[in-house]
């Protein structure tokens, strides 16, 4: 019979996903800052922003960026909480609260991306 490892080795998966999402963000997140910079500097008007974010492939990459961002943020917060908060009850409730907030936030953002006419 296979030895039951319980929750051990879960960390390997989280270690991997933290880095996989990091690689994706390395390429996609600079685009988000570029958009902000162009609008801030007045180079892009609203019509330029709308034309770009409404392109089908931009919506797909935008959604991918959002999911990588939320996964990366979730894993990052989890590591920090696990390192600095040592009371299990507080740790678990805080992670529950943060995960719920991230989920609601993600749904709102996805609705925004796919809602543009």
């Amino acid at each position, binding site marked *: 019979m296979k030895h039951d490892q319980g929750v051990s080795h879960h960390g390997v998966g989280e270690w991997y996903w933290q*880095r996989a999402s*990091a*690689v994706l963000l*390395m390429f996609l*997140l*600079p685009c*988000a*800052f570029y958009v*902000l910079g162009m*609008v*801030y500097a*007045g180079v892009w008007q*609203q019509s330029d*922003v*709308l034309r770009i*974010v409404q392109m089908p492939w931009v919506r797909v990459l935008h959604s991918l960026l959002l999911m990588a*961002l939320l996964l990366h*943020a979730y894993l*990052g*917060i989890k590591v*920090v909480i696990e*390192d600095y908060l*040592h009371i299990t009850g507080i740790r678990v409730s805080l992670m529950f609260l943060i995960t719920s907030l991230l989920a609601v*936030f993600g749904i*709102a*953002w996805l609705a*925004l991306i796919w809602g*543009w006419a």
Partner: protein
Amino acid sequence: MISNRQQPLSPRLSVYRWHLTMVASLAHRASGLFLIVFMVFYFILLSLMTGAPEQFDLSLSLMHSLYGRVLLWLGFASFVYHFLNGIRFLLLDAGYGESRYAMRLSARMVLAVTLLMAAGAAVALL
């Protein structure tokens, strides 16, 4: 569950003498946490920028206000640091630059480039 209150828990901020690679790691966490705050600001800006025309104007005045510019600057600086140090961490994971000397040198390089970019952004924004 093994319960032993005497077991060392990481990272013992009060135990170790502060050193550069530790600062680099802590700054990675701090910038990451701030980027989560910035993500919320970005979402608000994005919904305004793609909303009604007067909302687009509101997003511009928000970004150009003092608080807006400070947030943008902090967000940009955090992003640059987290980006560069993230690459440093990925290279360390892949087995490059693991010697004590290389780790200190790369941490210095990341900090130097971040300071340079942040100074440039400060001139442009503030």
